[in-house]
């Protein structure tokens, strides 16, 4: 019995809970050191002098954390075939050490592939919010999900 979610198991308007994740200072600094070594992601004093007024996470870190949460809550249990891209992503507010992020994904639209039988596209809207309910990142992205094989 195939238990993973396939294209047919989703519906337009469905809201998928991606769970929560607390972001610690050490991981903010470690990620930034590797991928985005700007002072405001590495150093408290430089963060205070920035528009954000304190050390905050790289936006790419927030995006990568979204991906991890989507894998754990959804993609690992789905017949995921990857994603062609991100239509739009907005960084709305800084993510600070100790913040707890909660992710939500809404299915906006579903269509099947004209060129590849067995492939479906889910157009989704994602909101990552902090513990005060403020959105810190929003995005629109399309997922590729396998269709269920005909019995």
């Amino acid at each position, binding site marked *: 019995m195939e238990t993973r979610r396939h294209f047919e198991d989703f519906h337009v308007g469905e809201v998928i809970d991606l769970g929560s994740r607390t972001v610690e200072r050490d991981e903010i600094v470690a990620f930034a050191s*590797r991928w985005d070594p700007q002072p405001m992601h590495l150093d408290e004093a430089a963060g205070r002098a*920035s528009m954000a007024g304190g050390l905050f996470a790289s936006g790419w870190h927030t*995006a990568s954390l979204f991906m991890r949460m989507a894998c754990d809550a959804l993609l690992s249990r789905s017949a995921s075939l990857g994603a*062609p*891209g991100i239509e739009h992503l907005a960084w709305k507010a800084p993510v600070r050490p100790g913040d707890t992020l909660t992710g939500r994904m809404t299915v906006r639209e579903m269509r099947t592939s004209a060129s590849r039988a067995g492939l479906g596209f889910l157009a989704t809207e994602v909101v990552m919010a902090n513990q005060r309910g403020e959105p810190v990142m929003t995005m629109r992205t399309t997922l590729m999900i396998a269709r269920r094989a005909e019995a």
Partner: protein
Amino acid sequence: MKHLEDFHPGDRIELGSWTFTAEAIVDFARDFDPQPFHLDEAAGKASLFGGLAASGWHVACAWMRLWIDHQAREMAEARARGEEPPVPGPSPGFDDMRWTRPVLAGQTLSYRSTVISARASKSRPGWGLVDSLNEGFDAAGTRVFHFTSHVFVPTRP
């Protein structure tokens, strides 16, 4: 980093190259994108990608690192000339990020950034917004990755 007035449509920056080893692909994927085709060669071969493929976010993060390294070189050059370079502002986000071909283990991408537009910000006096097309090419020169970035840049005092 430069002032808004120093950015002109069509300005192109070659950011350098980045190699995606199998080990680095798996390391990134374990932390942030643990899907089988990013973790395991056999699973990658069986997928639409046809081999162990880098997470799209890994491909994007490599662009970011090369961009920051480029910016740091520019700032060091300005200081060497006795100038105090402006501190760049944040990015409000990006549009149209596309992973048009898989980036497989062992591949090297060359990245570049081309200015689309530079305009004063209506909401933030003293700042402007620079939009750029950022692209990654494989060894054969085929574009495999692109997106449009938006970054706040201070205007000349």
